Structures are given as structure tokens and as C-alpha cells.
């Protein structure tokens, strides 16, 4: 249970949250037409006759959209409805060419499922909570009105008209902004793993309608409000905070919450009423007579299931139990599908060139990725996708350390050069002469000189000041520009000082 509470004048209030997430399905074509769905194209350049609702045009379902919705449902452990149907939601607006949106009210394609979220992402041992998913249905997006093109008129861009969305409706199972944030992040991670949505909230390909109500602990559910089209995790959390606070103040001030649609204004961090239930449209839903019911056969469902990748929860468990990663490393690596893919490529290549099992290179790969690489990318302001060093090049670098060709500290220098030049590690090592030496004779000579130059310290060491051992190692390493094998130095020093 969440202990999130609003402190009102009359005591504590609980918050009840449900989310309807609209996720744009990653396909090249729209839900019912062949038009492209690419983001950011010139207005009205990705519009087919169907999207513009020309007379006599008919929708034909895009099989790939159906497939992605089914795969998403499977990834959420949800019931897949082998029979579903499209309904028309009728209303007039200039961004809605048909005068109706094709959606699924009565028979959605996906039924109940759930998402397990960690209640504290920073703490691998934090408790988890299962949040119910009520349903997923497929529907068309609308176009976009542009109000800044003409002093007295609005323009319409139909590029988004007809783009396929999944509406993923949660149960009212969340009780704090943090839980809602964790739900959205986890849902986004799963969508990206499945490949059914790119999850780019800033481009509008994922957005949430946030339903919030408040109640005294143990009491009946309060009246909810719905804040539409919230387009970041941070804003989702802010909406819940603001809306819960507003509702508590309203009720405690003697008012009542009305069921209404609200909009969030990020600049002022407040929600505003858009329309009340009394003004709500009568959408006159009815089955779309242009479309037959969707009936999914077993072969189709089997293909959808077989095509699912390993999902975040399963991957984390495997990273810990099979690869022996720490829970923290495992959780960090799986949080995002791209990071996990990068890591697995790095590890696979490492295992290949070192001739070892993946589990034997996993920890070194994870440490290097989350330490060296992430540090460098942060510094350079780059994302993993833009990393100047590929998984293959990274694996080669790690292998050079593992086989003793270079030391860990030389590896850091080599990596810096690789970031700049893009050269393979082996080339950098050769060009710069950074190869570590294990040549006993050469090291012995240097050690002898170090000991001779520091006879006073040798005497102190022999009198029991053993901490000076590190000093001799350091001096030797320094004299050899870091290229000596530290283990060999240790052995020789021990022998000489004995």
C-alpha cells in the first residue's frame, strides 16, 4: 500500500488514480489506409483519400496494427479476445474528417492484464506492486488544428488523421504520483521491448489521460476528473499532485468535485476545466458497418506469441540468476530495451572473442557499460544510440584487459582515444605503444633501480612499514609509463624485498 497522503484541514486523504495511455502503434502505415505515419512531415503530405474521408472511401484494417496490439496484450499477460469489433464514435470537429473516430467500445481486442512496478526504482530490494490493466483497444488518431497560421482562420493538418493508436486503460489501482510514474515508465519499457510503440512522449507517440479522485481512507471512491493528453511522466505526476490538492481543497471548502474533462497547463502547473459531464458529447457509438468483426485464428496468435522478445521482468531475473549480475546492474540494464540490447551485443561479442561463456564476461561488460561508457556518454551529452564506440569495439577493449594486454588504467586512456578517433582498441594500443609488458628482465631492471634509488624506504619497509610496498609498485609502474603487468611487478618486488 502506498503511504502517499494529502494532508487536508480535516485530516488525511487518499488519492485514487487510473491512467488511459494512448500509444501510437509503430507501423509504417495508418490503421485503415496505406498512408505513411512518419513524424514531422510537411502538413497534409501523408494523407490518403481514406484519411481525408473523401466520398465513397472505405477503411481496410492494417493487419500489422492488429498484430502489434495483440503482441502488446500478450506482453502484459492479458486475455486476447479472438473476437473483437470496431465501433464508430460520432462527433463533429474539424480535425476529424469522417465525423467519427473508428474505435473499439463494445468488444476490445485485449482484455485484462497487469503490470508489475517497483515502488522505488533506485532500490533493487524495494517492494513491487501489480497494477491492473482493464483493456486495450485499437483506434484512429485525429488530425491537428493549427491556430497560428492565419489571423482569423484555423488550418487543418491531416497527417496524423487515421494513425493507429492503442488505448491502454489501467484499473484505478495507483495511489501516488510515484506509482503512476513507475507505471508509465514500465509500460513504456514494455512497449519498446515489444516494438509496438516507440514511447516518444515528447513527439506525442505516447500520451496519457489521467483520472484522479480523492477519498478519506477506507471510504467510497470519490468523483473523478480526467485530465487529457498529458505528454510526459513528470507532467503525469504533476497533474496528480495538483489535481488531488485541488480536489481536497474544494471538498474541504464545502464544494463538490464534478465529473469533467480537464487540461494541464505546464507553464502554470495547474489543471483547467475543459468541459463538464453535462456538456459531454453523446458519441452515438455503434458498430462500424464498413468493417467486419476481427476474428483472430490460432495460427495468428501463435505467431504473435512466438515473435515476442524476452520481456523486462524475465530479463532481469536471468541477468541476476544466470549471468550473476548485481540486482542494481541488472535493473539498470533492463530498464530500457535499447540498453539491454546494447549490453547483450557487448557481452556476446566479448564471449566470442575471448572464447568464454557469456556469464564469464557479463560482470566486466556490465561494469564497463554502466561505468566507463555511461560516464563518457554523459560527459559528451550523447545517448547510447549515438555512442561513438560500438558494442564490438567495446568488447575488444574489455578483452584486452582480460587477457592482460593492457591494465585497467591503460584501458581508460585507450577508451578516451577510441572515443575521439573511433579506432579499434588494438590499433590504439599498438600506435601509442601502450601494450603492457610482462617481460621479467625489463621489470627486474626497473625494480632494481627503484629499490636502489630509495634505499631509505627499503630500510623502513624491512623495519615493518609494509604499506610502502604500494609505493614501490607505483614507482615501478611510473617508470614504465604504466605498461608493466602489475602482477609481475608484485611478484618481483616481493622476491627482492624478502
Amino acid at each position, binding site marked *: 500500500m502506498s503511504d502517499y497522503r494529502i494532508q487536508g484541514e480535516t485530516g488525511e486523504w487518499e488519492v485514487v488514480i487510473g491512467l488511459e495511455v494512448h500509444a501510437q502503434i509503430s507501423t509504417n502505415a495508418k490503421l485503415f489506409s496505406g498512408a505513411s505515419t512518419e513524424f514531422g512531415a510537411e502538413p497534409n503530405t501523408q494523407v490518403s483519400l481514406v484519411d*481525408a*474521408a*473523401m*466520398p*465513397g472511401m472505405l477503411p481496410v484494417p492494417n493487419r500489422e496494427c492488429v498484430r502489434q496490439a495483440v503482441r502488446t496484450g500478450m506482453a502484459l499477460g492479458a486475455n486476447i479476445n479472438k473476437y473483437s469489433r470496431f465501433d464508430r464514435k460520432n462527433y463533429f470537429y474539424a480535425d476529424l474528417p469522417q*465525423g*467519427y473516430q473508428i474505435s473499439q467500445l463494445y468488444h476490445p481486442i485485449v482484455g485484462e492484464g497487469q503490470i508489475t512496478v517497483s515502488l522505488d526504482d533506485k532500490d533493487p530490494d524495494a517492494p513491487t506492486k501489480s497494477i491492473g490493466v482493464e483493456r486495450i483497444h485499437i483506434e484512429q488518431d485525429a488530425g491537428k488544428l493549427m491556430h497560428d497560421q492565419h489571423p482569423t482562420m484555423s488550418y487543418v493538418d491531416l497527417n496524423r488523421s487515421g494513425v493507429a493508436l492503442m488505448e491502454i486503460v489501467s484499473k484505478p489501482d495507483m495511489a501516488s504520483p510515484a506509482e503512476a510514474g513507475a507505471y508509465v515508465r514500465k509500460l513504456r519499457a514494455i512497449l519498446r521491448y515489444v516494438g509496438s510503440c516507440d514511447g516518444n512522449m515528447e513527439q506525442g507517440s505516447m500520451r496519457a489521460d489521467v483520472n484522479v479522485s480523492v477519498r478519506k481512507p477506507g471510504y467510497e471512491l470519490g468523483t473523478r476528473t480526467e485530465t487529457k493528453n498529458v505528454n510526459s511522466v513528470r507532467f503525469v505526476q504533476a497533474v496528480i499532485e495538483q489535481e488531488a490538492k485541488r480536489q481536497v481543497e474544494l471538498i474541504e471548502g464545502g464544494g463538490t468535485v464534478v465529473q469533467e474533462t480537464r487540461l494541464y497547463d505546464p507553464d502554470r502547473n495547474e489543471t483547467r476545466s475543459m468541459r463538464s459531464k453535462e456538456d459531454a458529447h453523446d458519441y452515438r457509438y455503434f458498430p462500424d*458497418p*464498413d468493417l467486419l468483426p476481427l476474428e483472430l485464428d490460432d495460427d495468428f496468435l501463435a505467431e504473435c506469441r512466438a515473435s515476442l522478445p524476452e520481456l523486462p521482468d524475465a530479463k532481469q531475473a536471468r541477468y541476476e540468476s544466470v549471468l550473476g549480475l548485481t540486482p542494481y546492474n541488472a535493473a539498470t540494464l533492463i530498464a530500457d530495451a535499447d540498453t539491454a540490447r546494447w549490453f547483450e551485443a557487448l557481452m556476446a561479442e566479448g564471449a566470442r572473442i575471448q572464447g568464454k561463456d557469456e556469464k564469464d564476461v557479463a560482470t566486466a561488460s556490465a561494469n564497463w557499460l554502466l561505468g566507463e561508457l555511461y560516464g563518457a556518454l554523459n560527459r559528451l551529452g550523447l545517448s547510447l544510440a549515438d555512442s561513438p564506440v560500438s558494442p564490438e569495439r567495446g568488447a575488444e577493449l574489455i578483452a584486452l584487459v582480460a587477457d592482460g594486454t593492457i591494465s585497467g588504467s591503460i584501458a581508460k586512456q585507450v577508451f578516451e582515444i577510441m572515443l575521439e578517433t573511433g579506432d579499434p582498441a588494438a590499433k590504439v594500443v599498438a600506435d601509442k605503444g601502450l601494450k603492457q609488458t610482462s617481460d621479467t628482465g625489463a621489470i627486474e631492471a626497473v625494480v632494481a633501480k627503484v629499490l636502489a634509488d630509495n634505499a631509505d624506504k627499503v630500510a623502513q619497509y624491512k623495519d615493518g612499514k609494509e604499506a610502502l610496498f604500494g609505493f614501490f609498485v607505483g614507482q615501478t609502474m611510473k617508470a614504465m609509463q604504466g605498461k608493466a603487468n602489475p602482477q609481475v611487478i608484485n611478484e618481483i618486488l616481493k622476491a627482492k624485498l624478502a
Partner: protein
Amino acid sequence: MTDLTDLTVTEIRDGVADGSFSAREVAEGFNAAVAAAKPLNAFIVETPEKALAAADAVDAKRAKSEPLGLMGGVPIGMKDLFCTEGVQSTAASHILEGFVPQYESTVSAKLWAAGAGMLGKLNMDQFAMGSSNETSFFGNVISPWRRNDGGNTDLAPGGSSGGSSTAVSARIAPAATGTDTGGSIRQPAAFTGICGIKPTYGRCSRWGVVAFASSLDQAGPMARTVQDCAIMLEAMAGFDPKDATSLDNPVPHWEGALSGDLKGKRIGIPREYRMEGIDPEIDKSWEAGKAWLRDAGAEIVDISLPHTKYALPAYYIIAPAEASSNLARYDGVRYGLRDLPEGAGLQDMYAATRAAGFGPEVKRRIMIGTYVLSAGFYDAYYTQAQKVRTLIARDFGRAWGECDLILAPTAPSAAFGLGEKSDDPIAMYLNDVFAVPASLAGLPAMSVPAGLNGQGLPLGLQIIGKPLDEQSVLDAGLAIEQRAGFEARPGKWW
């Protein structure tokens, strides 16, 4: 030489193929007939140049001994519900006046590919809503038929495909496309003494056809003979991936298999169609039809379609419900009429555009449809009507255990005078009473001329068949045609 405009589709196709005349001569003949028939108001747009171009293409193919196509050299009229590339397509409405599509409907494209040419776009009831052609924005079509009382009362050509029925019966087109939602091919065919078949729902693509009621709309041919209908239907039908309700079945060669021999066929006579107060002349022609089919070798059996009386009310809920949604796209935003009063906002523009752009019957049906889909009424009307629809389909399904075809009148009366029913929508809707059940069940149904009534006006008989069994429907139509000896034609007064 006979007047080329008296020829049937079959005769034109064969005559062009064997060189008796050129396709161009045929097109010129019909172009002239169209131009001379303005008083009938059958066409909204005339396209003589299109008819000539198609004819020349066919003649050129013949010169090179290439195949001429199923409709090679046959000029036709195109109901204005079909979108035709580069030619105004209005559904006989003001709201689409001036709308010129950049695309060609699947059915019309198939006809052009089969060698047909276009004489023009045919007038019709606005958005296919009407049974008399009086709802057209472009003025009503007048039937070429006159009562034999010596008067000159203008008669309704039927609807909604009234331009089609008039053009074919007046011999200004050998054939025309029609569309049938609740009888719009069959009733006008019956009123004008021609043949028309509505195939199984899904046989003809709806892509590019302005939608009235999507679950019912179906295109079909209207022509003077059963064989002509068979030929033209073959050219129009076929699976279309652009229409999700299109049937993926092969198109039979109906003409080739056509036979008036009905040995072994059982013809069902639904007792519920024998309605109180039925016009005795309609009843008489129905009796004659039974006798002809029996003579052709068929067995006549009584059947029951118990939910028939609920068909018309259910139809007048489902069709307007779908129409109210289908017609929402005519909003003044992207094409067609836009009425933007000074200082108006979006809602004002919608209201002004739709008030000016739709005629009274279209508005009536949009309001009925909006009402029956509204919260609180949906279950009582729409859901209930869908249940009735299921029961009606089940009635037919049961009947097919006892018979192969059903024979019934097409309409409850012969053509009525223009204006006689236009103030009484219910009386107008009752015209569809025999046609609507087959539409709700998606079944193939055809009207063929049975004879003239006492006023000298044509009466039609309707044959309803099993799903996808257009062949049997056409065969029975042929058997009636062979025995009815219908050779009457309207006297030329225009």
C-alpha cells in the same frame, strides 16, 4: 437498319464484335438520344465525349483483333452515386455540387475496363434516399411511361435509381448502373418495365460509391433483358481488397450458364407477403408469375417468413442510423459546399453548410438516425432493429430448407404520380415493403417485368435467391421473361 438505340446490351456487344456496326455509331446514336431527352431530366451530367472515346477504343481494338471485353462497345448511364474521375459526382445533392473526384469507383472502373463507355451521370434520389426521385437537388426525373387514360400526369420513375430506370426504359441508354439499399434497383425497374438485379451483399465493391447505409448498399445492373443483366453484373462484380466487406469469391460466368429451365427447382411463396389491401392487379401478376415458373418446370411451395412485418421498421432504423454517421463527412471543411456566414465559427459553418446542402428527406433521415443511436434510445431502437435483422435472415435461412427461390411482387403498386406521396413519408416508405427483407438479409434479388396493369403501366415480379446464387435468380428471371412476353415500351412524348 434498325435504330441502334433499340438494341439490347447483348445485341450491341455482338453487333460490334461481328462488325454489323461500329461502337462509334452506337455511341453517337445514344448520345443523340440523350441530348433529345432533356425533358426526362434523367442525367445530371452528360458526357458524350466519354462515350465516344470508349467506343473509339473498342473499334480500335476490333481493328487489331483484340478482345473487346464483356461490355465492349456498350455505352451506359452511370448513377451519380458512383465517383467518376474528372466528372462531377454529387449523389444528386447540393452539398456535393461541383465535386469532381480524383478517383474512379471500383465498379465503374471495371465497367470501363470491360469496354463500356459513359453517356453521363444519372439523376437519382438525393444520397439514394427516396422511392420516387423527388428528393434530387437537380429536380425529379420523369418516367417515360404515361397512364393510358389520355392524360399527361407525370409519373415517378421509382427510386432511388430513377435516372437509371428512366434512361433504360426510354432507350436513351441500353443499360445503367443502379444501387440498392432497400429496393433502389428493383422498385424503379418494376415501375419502368425493365430488369434489375441486386446481387448478394459483397459481390460488388462499394469503394468509390457514395455511402448511404454501408451494411445494405449494393450496386447492380439495370437493363432491358435478363441476359443483359447477367452480362453487366459479371463486369461489375468481383473481390476488391479496398472494401473490407467485399466477398472473396470467384465471379461466375452467369450469361454462359443462363437457362430458363427450372426443373427440380422449388419456388417459395411467402404467405406473409400477401398483405391486407394489396392491389388486386399486383396479386394477379403474382399468380401469373407462379404459373409461368410452374410451366418452366418448377414446383411452387408455400413458405413462411414470420418476421416480415418487422422488416420495414427495422430497415428504417438501421439505414438512417448508418446514414447519419456516413453523411457526417459532408461538413464544409474539405470539399463540396461550404457556407461560412460572416463572423461564423466552426459550429456555425457546420450548421449553415448542412442546412443549405442537404434536402428535407436527407435531413429527416439524419435526424431519425441520430435519434435512434442516442444514449438512452440505442437499445430500444438500434439494438432491437439488429435483432430483427438477425431474425429476418434466419427466416430466409429456414425457408431455404423448403425452397430454392422466392417469388414475390417487387412493389405494392405500379408507378404513382409525381407529388402524390411526396408529403407523406410513411406512404413513400411503404413502397419498399417487399424489397427490404432481401436487403436486410443481404440476398440476391431481381425484378423482371411481368406485364401491364389496367392503366397501361408496368408491374414487376421479384425473385429472391440464396446467398451467392445469382445464377438461379437470373434463370428464374429468364423463365418469366420468356413467358411474360413483355414487349411494351413507353411512347415517345419528350
